[in-house]
């Protein structure tokens, strides 16, 4: 397993360098003088301009700049926000748990609903229940996330007034930052009702973000289960007199998990993209909203870091998924070491 991990990491090195090159190029490719774009309306005299160029290292030849950039990255230095003057890493540390909390809840919701629904649909193939689940999943799969969010706000926040419209917790609560996960921090704080408020703030965004993954997981679970249900070993298991639950869960689901894990990995990409939209709709202070706000404010170091970090997260998750294959299916442990091509 450890060797497998090393091999996988080695194949990621060229991609990793490529991604840093793209992030590096991002600031340089923006048409016009980078300093003037960043400074915006303010006028700069040539001396200030030169000083800024020097401070940002933009007066060096491009290859030198790139190696300097790599050196900074290696030290965990992602640059400085032009707007807040804070190191980008510090902002990231505060915002990242918010996105993880949102995306994690969304994925959990998608799994908790998608897996059983898909399995039940496969077991009752052709029934009205199956058709209902599949129709819902088909619609869910085509759902424009940002619109879905607005519709749910209309129904549950504006109409029924059950849930708040935006943010992570009611403004009346002052929860100290411990883990960055609001549900955890609110539970740790001694403010009564804070946890409930945090949960209410989380529900709608998580449902919105979890809708597409749930639809995809339900569809994939159903078709993987249908595939497995036809296998001989399922008949054997039933013939042995095992309980139906054991047949379905132990013999069925375990073998159906391989395609489901693949789909799960692919969904993380759409979760990251969806997080940008969901966070924008619900004013959820995570890295997606941070990125969009930074683009609007022309805070390019933040944009650069945001894109780089998203790529790293995505690559990391794909790596985990690749390794999970080995756990789910021991037969694939040997094959994974080989190059995908």
């Amino acid at each position, binding site marked *: 397993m450890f060797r497998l991990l090393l091999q996988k990491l080695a194949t990621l090195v*060229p*991609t990793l360098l*490529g*991604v840093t*090159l*793209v992030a590096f190029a*991002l600031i340089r*490719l*923006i*048409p016009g003088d980078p300093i003037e774009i960043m400074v915006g309306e303010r006028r700069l005299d040539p001396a200030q301009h030169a000083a800024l160029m020097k401070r940002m290292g933009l007066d060096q030849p491009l290859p030198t700049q790139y190696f300097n950039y790599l050196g900074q990255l290696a030290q965990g230095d992602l640059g400085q926000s032009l707007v807040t003057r804070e190191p980008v890493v510090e902002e990231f540390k505060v915002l990242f748990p918010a996105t993880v909390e949102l995306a994690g809840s969304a994925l959990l919701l998608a799994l908790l609903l998608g897996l059983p629904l898909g399995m039940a649909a496969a077991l009752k193939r052709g029934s009205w229940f199956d058709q209902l689940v599949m129709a819902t999943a*088909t*619609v869910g*799969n*085509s*759902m*424009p*996330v*940002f*619109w*879905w969010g*607005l*519709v749910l*706000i*209309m129904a549950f926040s*504006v109409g029924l007034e059950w849930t708040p419209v935006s943010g992570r917790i009611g403004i009346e609560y002052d929860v100290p930052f411990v883990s960055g996960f609001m549900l955890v921090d609110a539970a740790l704080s001694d403010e009564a009702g804070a946890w409930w408020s945090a949960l209410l703030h989380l529900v709608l965004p998580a449902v919105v973000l979890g809708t597409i993954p749930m639809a995809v997981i339900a569809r994939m679970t159903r*078709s993987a289960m*249908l*595939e497995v249900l036809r296998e001989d070993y399922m008949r054997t298991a039933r013939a042995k007199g095992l309980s139906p639950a054991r047949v379905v869960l132990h013999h069925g689901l375990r073998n159906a998990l391989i395609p489901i894990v693949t789909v799960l990995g692919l969904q993380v*990409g*759409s979760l*990251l*993209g*969806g997080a*940008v*939209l969901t966070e*924008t*709709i619900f004013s959820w202070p995570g890295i997606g909203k941070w*990125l*969009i706000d930074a*683009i*609007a404010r022309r805070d*390019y170091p933040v*944009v650069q870091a945001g*894109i780089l970090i*998203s*790529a790293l997260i*995505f*690559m990391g998750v794909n790596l985990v998924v690749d390794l999970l294959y080995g756990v789910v299916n021991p037969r694939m442990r040997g094959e994974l070491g080989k190059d995908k*091509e």
Partner: protein
Amino acid sequence: MKAFIANRGAFIALLVFAAVVLAALLAPWLAPHDPVQQFREHMLTPPVWQAGGLAQFPLGTDELGRCLLSRLLFGARVSLMIGVLSVLLALLPGIVLGLVAAFHPRWVSPLVMRVMDVLLALPGLLLAIGVITILGPGLINTVIAIAVGALPGYVRLVRGSALAELGRDYVTASRLAGAGTLRLMFDTVLPNCLAPVIVSATLSFSSAILETAALGFLGLGVQAPQPEWGSMLSAARDYIERAPWVVTLPGLSILVTVLAVNLMGDGLRDALDPKLRQA
């Protein structure tokens, strides 16, 4: 084709999609008003079936008094056009790069595939956002941004199927008969790789429509006053309590169109690839 028609869902989807295409093509004749004309005295008029609706504006008006029906019809043009253009802009280079990579495994293939890996390292929407950051918002740039995100998928798909075909006897026969590389690529191998490519083009068409709307919603796509479903939604956010129709109608247009294309794609996949039919 028979299998496609036999699939009831796909057939209905085809009809719905045909209606959307017709509406887009005939928008200048179907639309009751100019989509950017502002009727200041009729701001946020509800649709005709609600109290206070006017026959003049069948689906009501938006926050600037523009006819919603006209904007939705012209919005269909923008969405479909960006969808088609971005698919073509990804598909054609994707086919060429995929074939070239399959035919030149020594040097070109690793190079092309590593570049594609880098593009794949970012989820589609974030890659599009990155491209827009460099190019700036706008219709053509939206097309480019979406195409860049879709390109690696095609390259991988074409390369994979071409590699599978290259080992077949008919390719060897053609090669022995003296066919040049170009002829082998486009005339011999490509037609046999097209089925999965067509299916994937349909599905990436629907995600292009979604991404166009998402970029529009984030303010990074097609710019005002041009009617585009996503940017219409983003402007409508502030009127969610007073005028729900400015929120529901553009969203429904996106959902119905994307759903129709996806169902068509599923039907096409089942028809072209019998192995997947029962899934």
